[in-house]
């Protein structure tokens, strides 16, 4: 326990999350993964946007940045590219990441910039009190989906993979040990890594949809997921309609900051002793 406590700003606790919220479990999993890897506190930077999930960095004893809604990955891109030696982690929610921040998400994945993104997916906008998100299952209720959500959801992990993320995994707050492992893998992967963490919001999602409290929601999460490895050998009827959990995609590729450093190495050599001064000639002719 003591090896993880040192990564918390203990004077900032208690946190603002509701009783039974899964975000503490996910944050705990991240810190446990960091502790296992013995990361230097001074070389980790955690960035978030807006929402319940985005309050997590405030409780963590690193350089932490709480930004605007959806923008965490864009701020993180600036930090990482400016200081590639830092371990940059983004903590985001399903609305923050896939709705307002969707464009930044797919482009960070496309660049394969070395950022670990942990998406706390509780299928709802919690902080604004229960509106439906792009991850609210069809037919479920939200305060803005009073007759049942007519929209479809993203498959966040497939979206990440298609956009170019080079490590993609899905865990849950029910499978806490597995979540630590997955985040640990993501943190050691050089490139854009995504861990979708299914988590429970008893206050809004559970209550509104009459699924129940935290325990029932954890049961619900357990029932709608199946381990990706097990799924490979299970009969199709046991897998149908369920979300796979575990490591879903791993495909190491050249990382963006490394590629940019190669450009620097190339042109700095070419312009040795360069002290600025812009080209004087080739301009567009019109």
């Amino acid at each position: 326990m003591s090896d993880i406590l040192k990564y918390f700003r203990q004077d900032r606790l208690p946190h603002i999350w509701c009783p039974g919220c899964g975000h503490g479990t996910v944050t705990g999993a991240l810190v446990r993964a960091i502790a296992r890897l013995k990361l230097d506190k001074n070389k980790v930077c955690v960035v978030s946007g807006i929402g319940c999930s985005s309050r997590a960095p405030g409780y963590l004893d690193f350089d932490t940045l709480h930004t605007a809604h959806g923008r965490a990955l864009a701020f993180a891109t600036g930090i990482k590219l400016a200081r590639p030696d830092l371990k940059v982690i983004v903590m985001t929610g399903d609305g923050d990441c896939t709705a307002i921040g969707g464009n930044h998400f797919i482009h960070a994945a496309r660049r394969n910039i070395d950022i670990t993104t942990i998406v706390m997916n509780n299928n709802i906008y919690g902080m604004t009190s229960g509106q439906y998100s792009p991850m609210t299952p069809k037919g479920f209720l939200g305060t803005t989906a009073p007759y049942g959500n007519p929209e479809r959801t993203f498959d966040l992990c497939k979206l990440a993979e298609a956009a170019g993320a080079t490590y993609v995994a899905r865990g849950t707050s029910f499978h806490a040990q597995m979540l630590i492992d997955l985040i640990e893998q993501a943190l050691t992967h050089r490139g854009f890594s995504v861990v979708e963490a299914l988590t429970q919001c008893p206050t809004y999602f559970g209550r509104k949809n009459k699924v129940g409290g935290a325990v029932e929601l954890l049961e619900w999460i357990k029932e709608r997921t199946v381990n990706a490895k097990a799924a490979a050998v299970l009969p199709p009827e046991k897998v149908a309609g369920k979300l796979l959990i575990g490591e879903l995609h791993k495909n190491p590729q050249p990382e963006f900051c490394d590629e940019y450093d190669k450009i620097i190495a190339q042109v700095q050599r070419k312009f040795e002793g360069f002290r600025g001064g812009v080209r004087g000639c080739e301009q567009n002719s019109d």
Partner: protein
Amino acid sequence: MPSAKLMQGNEACTIGALVAGLEFYAGYPITPSTEIAELCSEELPKVGGKFVQMEDEIGSIAAIIGASLTGKKSMTATSGPGFSLMQESLGYASETEVPVVIINVQRMGPSTGMPTSPAQGDVMQARWGTHGDHPVIALAPGNVKECFDLTVRAFNLAEEYRVPVIVLTDEVIGHMREKVLLPDWEDVKVVDRARPTAPGGYRPYEADLDGGVPLMAPFGQGYRWHVTGLFHDETGFPSGKADVADRLLRRLDRKITKNEKVIRDYVTESVEDCEILVVSFGSSAMSALSAVRRARREGVKAGMLRLKTIWPFPDEVLKDLSRNAKAVLVPEMNLGQLAYEVERTVGCRAPVVRIGKVNGDLFRPDEIHDKIMEAAK
């Protein structure tokens, strides 16, 4: 020895930024600012700096704020539509006191407008574009040399006061080429943000409540501090307390109002005895100056005040210069934005004449000259 060169405004902005210590650029292509991005992409890696073309202007300003938090001087460049998209994080930079420079090469709006035509319609957006009261500084170069000078100054002011600084140029000045003699780089004054010396006891937002500027630690150096767009106390952590919010916002505002005299920058011509005062900025001021000089030759007591700092607006200077004016003329390529400030400042001392031009063309000097002669009657 530096020699005179034919140089473009956008090019001079880029060189100014590099001389001021630019290390990080993030941007999204938009006419008529794109040369700045192109030159930064070419020059920055040569000096070990970084360039990234983001997915949009929202991401661009976010990325430069992130980079600035690591201690690197950072900039983006854009035009009206992109500047609109940047307003969200412009407010973030104000609230969190992260120095950044934004060059806005203005074009005709609203909306897509006339992408290749000049305008000066972002005067008010530069001041009030983002929500809430917030400190900003906006500088307006009046020629190519000033694109260099004021970009350097934008970085210096951003670093000194920890505010976003906007350089408001326009399509004419951005694309215009003229003879420019740049100073020797070693002679250019460059300011760097004040940093704490050791992490122990660091309180990131501790500062004199009367417009003090807190010390800024770079990320990744052991300070482990928290930055949030929520109202926060001296520790940097969020606070919903009324007195904390009040204290912070008043301090942010005082950073600028208290230092207005230092931040102000303007040039005058023939104002000593002037009866017709022309107040202008940017490319409109070039036409205005030509008109003022012609009116003088014709015996009219015309004078000119050209603002190089638009925000904060130099109330005192204008009050002083308009004391004996029979009329104050404000030519600008919009329907009267700077004029609001001029009207407010001049009050009932003299009539303020708005001379707006919104057809995508620069003023011809005779258009302003006619108005001077009319006012002098």
